[in-house]
């Protein structure tokens, strides 16, 4: 077995997160433990996990917007050549918006309610570049067209005159205006209808091709992860328990959590299931030591209370589980 070989210094890696740990300052509770992943140029990287698994927090750390009550205890986040965890607030502000764009689930609150969308665009543009209002309007219209909105009409509308899908599109337009290298999309479709959500994701994939950027797609919806991503990281208890090419992870899930997550999901199927396989326990209940999933894991064994290193399975797939080393018979020792 080769240990810990997730290649983190590869040439075409856009974002590299290494050994990242985050704790709550007061209680010393670990929210993210030794996170390790990289996003390469031009891919959609999916981060999946239940509420409380630390996926949104990871996005916040990458954006350098971590709350004052939290503390990064170790590790680094590198975007290209710049080391985000050591930048000043001013430098960060330059990176946010220009290099990294952020799309959130709350597109409703993205725009200020009583100012026309166009005015808000002009303001954002003139914040980052030194051009006249007229020029800025041209830029805004250009990008509103890019996200397939009726640009002039949207430009002259108040936010509450637009539908949810239109608002999310407008917020995408404002996010990509400076042609960022990385778009972080944190549950971008959760608040939208199924059809609208799919169209938003279509748009994101299309823009990704056009701008040649990467996308970090954070979602709890496995369908989106399966359909859209090239690489996927499965998070549990602040840790990535399995990571790899989406096709590899799906066809051969190693970690019991990944496995159960995939099995317990609802999927539209010609063959109707009579009962869904389920996981034991409550989401968020995690073991203090060793594998965070060991409290709920059906194939838990003694060694699970030790720290589990990432082991790789082929060049594009690795997981942190003792099962990979264990004999097959031991695999079904239930507690």
């Amino acid at each position, binding site marked *: 077995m080769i240990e810990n070989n997730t290649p983190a210094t590869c040439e075409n890696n856009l974002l590299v997160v290494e050994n990242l740990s985050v704790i709550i300052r007061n209680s010393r509770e670990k*929210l993210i433990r030794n996170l390790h992943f990289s996003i390469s140029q031009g891919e959609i990287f999916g981060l999946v996990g239940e509420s*409380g698994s*630390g996926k949104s927090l990871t996005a916040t750390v990458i954006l350098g917007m971590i709350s004052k009550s939290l503390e990064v205890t170790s590790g680094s986040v590198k975007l290209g050549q710049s080391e985000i965890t050591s930048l000043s607030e001013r430098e960060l502000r330059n990176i946010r918006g220009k290099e990294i764009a952020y799309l959130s689930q709350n597109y409703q609150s993205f725009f200020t309610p009583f100012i026309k969308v166009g005015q808000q665009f002009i303001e954002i543009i003139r914040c980052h570049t030194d051009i006249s209002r007229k020029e800025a309007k041209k830029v805004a219209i250009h990008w509103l067209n890019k996200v397939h909105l009726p640009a002039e009409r949207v430009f002259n509308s108040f936010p509450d005159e637009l539908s949810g899908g239109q608002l999310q599109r407008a917020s995408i337009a404002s996010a990509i205006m400076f042609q960022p290298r990385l778009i972080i999309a944190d549950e971008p479709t959760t608040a939208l209808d199924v059809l609208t959500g799919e169209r938003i994701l279509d748009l994101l994939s299309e823009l990704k091709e056009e701008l040649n950027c990467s996308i970090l797609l954070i979602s709890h919806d496995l369908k989106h992860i399966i359909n859209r991503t090239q690489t996927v990281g499965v998070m549990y208890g602040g840790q990535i328990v399995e990571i790899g090419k989406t096709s590899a992870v799906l066809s051969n899930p190693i970690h019991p959590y990944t496995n159960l997550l995939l099995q317990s999901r609802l999927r539209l199927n010609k063959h109707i299931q009579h009962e869904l396989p389920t996981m034991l326990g409550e989401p*968020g*209940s995690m073991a203090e030591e060793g594998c965070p999933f060991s409290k709920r894991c059906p194939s838990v064994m003694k060694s699970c209370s030790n720290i589990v290193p990432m082991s790789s399975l082929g060049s594009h797939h690795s997981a942190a589980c003792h099962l990979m080393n264990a004999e097959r018979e031991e695999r079904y020792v239930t507690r």
Partner: protein
Amino acid sequence: MNIQMPRINRIPFFFKNQNLLIQWGIIFFLIITLITLIGPFIVPNDPLTANMSERLAPPSSTYPLGTDHMGRCIFSRLIVGAQSTLGITALVVATVAIIGIPIGLVIGYIGGRLDTVFMRVADGILALPEFILAIAIAGFLGPSLTNLMISIVFVKWIAYTRVVRSIVITERNKDYVQAAKVGGSSSWKIIRRHMFPQIVSPVLVLATLDIGKVILTISSLSYLGLGAQPPAPEWGAMLNDGRPYFQSAPELMIYPGLAIFFVVLAFNLMGEGLRDKWDVKSR
């Protein structure tokens, strides 16, 4: 990650060193209550006995704060006066709550025409300045403590009704109320079981803050001669009595003024502390 917010109303808050405002408020409150309850048994002199030979005497061992223009012991009058001032206040606030809360619960929950009618009536009463109205009523019914109380209650219940009504209106559309309805609960049961617990803490805050205001209103109206009648000791009336001697003997007004000040302060501290704790929006 299961972050559980501590529920303030489950913790006996005054045992936790969390909020200085509340702590001071409660300490003051306890002192005031103690004085009010046992005060009349420990006063050095009879508060009503006039002794014209010793009028406007300076503080001495017999008269800890001196005497007033009639030669009565100021200290004794203050202590005994606390009972009528605070007793009336408590009675007024309690009456107001007893009238205002049920009305608010019912019109808020039922809504519709009943609600409209009640709120228009309330608007009508509120259109007149509170203080003037109290003066008018007290004047109409004749000056006495009872009438003073009636006039304050007449205006005050509206504030409670409004607060309760607006809480009930936001709560009554929530799923848990719908679920109770579907579960066959009567309107009366929903009001009692589901609405009432929601209003307890806001109303308690409102009441604590109001106590200060009511004390001031009673004292002001007594000062105008519409409340307690001489020679009964009452802080507002004492202020009024001291007015002609303001230049020669300012302590006649200063002592009752300070008493009012401290009581109002105590209740306001407590009220604001409670509001900060319970009202998430004001944080």
